[in-house]
């Protein structure tokens, strides 16, 4: 029996389990890219109008940091590749790593793989099947994106180069996840390490792209995301870039197969060390338990956010210099920040935009923290706690504390990081630190609304907790693409982030913030009332 025996059956099983999830990802990502291109073609039909939109953007380090190099911003294809190439690649990579972990380490952790492993299934079949499914989805996104863009009348070479760059990003991180799934015993940690690698690749590219002449632009070349960007879709495609990408994928897959062959089913590469024989005195209540379960995740997010903040802050002051006195650019950048064409301080607009993105990411933390409740329930770990005098509401509040107050910690970290970095550059530490920390914390009400949606779903329709993630996806689409695509105001208003004061620089109105806080409280309350009434387990 070969180590790959049964891969076909495992692939069919994975496709059966993901028959809704994968098509949603593939369709959503393809539609995102093709829709962006279609909107650019509609909104900026002439070369002159595109040139006007793009002036300055190509030389703006902040914009380069967030979106990547704009190699040719005078064509619809080039604009699309610039605007969506980077974030699209990150999303495809995220999908791929989640899919691979879901079908490898998560299956192993729950013990389901053992059930299959005892049948006529080779040792590497599960891994091979998970990678095959992820790569298949990546290829589908690549091909469909290429076809969609060709359908809009864009050049075939550019269309398929952009499609292939998405597919390549997905495959790289499918392969990375194949490695991280071997390292630890927990799927959550495997996802965390792989996502950390993705974040690091993105940040390396961002710093490298933001660097001016003589700066550390070589950093981009340390990042697979940077390589993929250098395929330059619609701007003189460089196909050879996919060579090293393929080599990296091959190396990761080979390494992961080798690691998989060396370890036992269920175990990680690192042996589990013994822990304390008894609980510390403070491990004595639902909140203490929640702290134990959330602290690692919270620390990881906070460190990541602090790094992100330092990066965002350190390139802020460079922006004003390059674009001084060009109202067009100010308008263009301000529009990216969702300020609807206001002028004001361009640096502030950039910082507000960056912190807004951090707010969206922090919402992901809050949602996963809230949905720990559901994870605990379905893993039947809620039952032993609820069989003690701890009531459902106290049990839930332990976890919700981390979704609510806990999500302030990463936000504070990004604000402080940005404030310190920006303050040191401008020699104005005393002003910038509280200013940017405040700007970051003002994101909280919108973060809470999204977490509230997850809690309401958990309490009222526990099978539909994915609603929290769907709401976040909607906010990302609206917030990131709405202003550029000139969506109607009502569509923008759907996202709670639209209603936040644009800080730093904007005016603070208490009313919308209070409304959001009230809405979040009502959603959480509805969820808790539902939880009290429904069956648990």
């Amino acid at each position, binding site marked *: 029996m070969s180590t790959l025996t049964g891969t076909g059956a495992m692939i069919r099983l994975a496709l059966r389990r993901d028959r809704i999830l994968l098509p949603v990802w593939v369709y959503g990502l393809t539609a995102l890219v093709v829709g962006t291109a279609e909107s650019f073609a509609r909104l900026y039909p002439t070369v002159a109008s595109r040139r006007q939109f793009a002036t300055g953007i190509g030389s703006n380090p902040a914009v380069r940091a967030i979106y990547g190099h704009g190699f040719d911003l005078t064509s619809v294809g080039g604009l699309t590749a610039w605007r969506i190439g980077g974030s699209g690649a990150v999303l495809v990579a995220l999908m791929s790593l989640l899919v691979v972990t879901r079908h490898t380490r998560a299956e192993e952790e729950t013990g389901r793989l053992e059930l299959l492993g005892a049948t006529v299934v080779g040792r590497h079949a599960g891994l091979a099947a998970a990678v095959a499914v992820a790569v298949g989805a990546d290829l589908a996104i690549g091909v469909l994106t290429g076809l969609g863009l060709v359908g809009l009348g864009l050049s075939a070479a550019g269309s398929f180069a952009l499609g292939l760059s998405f597919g390549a990003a997905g495959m790289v991180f499918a392969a990375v996840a194949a490695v991280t799934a071997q390292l630890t015993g927990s799927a959550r940690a495997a996802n965390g390490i792989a996502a950390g690698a993705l974040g690091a690749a993105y940040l390396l590219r961002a710093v490298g792209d933001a660097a001016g002449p003589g700066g550390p632009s070589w950093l981009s070349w340390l990042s697979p995301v940077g390589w993929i960007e250098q395929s330059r879709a619609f701007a003189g495609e460089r196909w050879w870039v996919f060579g090293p990408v393929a080599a990296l994928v091959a190396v990761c897959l080979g390494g992961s197969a080798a690691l998989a062959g060396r370890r036992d089913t269920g175990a990680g590469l690192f042996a*589990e060390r013994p822990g304390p024989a*008894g609980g510390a005195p403070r491990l004595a209540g639902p909140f203490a338990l929640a702290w134990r379960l959330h602290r690692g995740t919270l620390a990881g997010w906070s460190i990541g956010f602090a790094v992100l903040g330092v990066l965002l802050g350190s390139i802020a002051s460079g922006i004003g210099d390059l674009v001084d006195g060009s109202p067009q650019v100010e308008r263009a950048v301000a529009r990216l920040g969702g300020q609807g064409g206001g002028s004001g301080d361009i640096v502030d607009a950039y910082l507000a935009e960056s912190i807004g993105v951090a707010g969206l990411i922090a919402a992901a933390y809050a949602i996963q923290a809230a949905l720990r409740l559901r994870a605990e329930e379905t893993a039947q770990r809620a039952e032993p706690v609820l069989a003690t005098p701890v009531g459902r509401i106290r049990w839930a509040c332990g976890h919700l504390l981390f979704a609510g107050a806990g999500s302030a910690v990463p936000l504070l970290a990004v604000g402080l990081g940005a404030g310190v970095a920006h303050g040191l550059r401008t020699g104005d530490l005393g002003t910038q630190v509280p200013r940017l920390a405040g700007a970051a914390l003002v994101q909280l009400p919108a973060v809470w609304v999204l977490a509230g949606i997850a809690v309401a779903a958990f309490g009222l329709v526990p099978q539909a907790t994915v609603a929290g993630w769907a709401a976040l996806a909607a906010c990302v689409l609206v917030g990131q693409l709405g202003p550029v695509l000139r969506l109607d105001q009502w569509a923008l208003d759907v996202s709670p982030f639209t209603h936040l004061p644009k800080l730093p620089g904007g005016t603070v109105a208490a009313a919308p913030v209070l409304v959001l806080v009230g809405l979040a409280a009502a959603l959480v309350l509805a969820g808790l009332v539902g939880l009290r009434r429904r069956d648990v387990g």
Partner: protein
Amino acid sequence: MTTAISVAGLTKTFGPTRALNGLDLHVHSGEVHGFLGPNGAGKSTTIRILLGLLRADAGTVRLLGGDPRRDSAALHRRLAYVPGDVTLWPTLTGGEMIDLLGRLRGGLDPRRRADLLERFDLDPTKKGRTYSKGNRQKVALVAALACDVELLLLDEPTAGLDPVMESVFRDCIRAERRDGRTVLLSSHVLDEVEALCDRVSIIRNGRTEQTGTLADLRHLSRTSVTAELAGPPTGVADLPGVHEVTVRGTRLSCQVDAAGLDGLLAALTRIGVRGLVSRPPTLEELFLRYYQDGRTGAQAVAR
């Protein structure tokens, strides 16, 4: 005699599935009550309703004199629960789990905890994800038994335990009974039930089929009789209450209902008895009869 658990007419549906269908269960204070039934009969659902985790659709439930949903916090202070499928937090050690659950329940006895760890031979320093099934079960058992409570709800607590641990478990339950605690023990291990339980309730398809002591249940079942006779056993097969008759020459084996025993013996004596072996039904036969579906099941016994 006071009642620890009193359930009447309990009904629960999950979507189209009817899990409980008018179930009755009465557990006296201070007894070990066996809770038996085939897989999917509704045992775990009943226990979850007793814990207030699930809401009953119809029927009355009283637990330690209270309402499991309304008074859950107060009642949970007085009981301990071992789930059928023990899952532990992967990053907590077994010792941390035991202490945490004990403290959530209002404190545990450190001496008893140490004693139980030793008797169950459990290493409390291992992380939750590294325990085997049997050891996970032990963690839950130690956490439950180390607490001073009135009622233990145990859902197949010995699944995965080796025979040595099984016997430790039996000793522990006997000690619990001596201390006056009430135990509801859901189990498929028949000699465990026979060794520990004062009374049993057998449920099937969400309904209680039988309740009583094992002696009561035996009485409702068939005795197996093998006899060496003076002549051929003609006409025995037609006697009321006699089943599964096999005849080899003058040797007869059959099963007989308690009510038919008298008639059978009279008939055999008329033929002339050279040797006679009569065996009460084994528990296994008893339970197979209740567990099996349809006409060969409980109706046959009740006849």
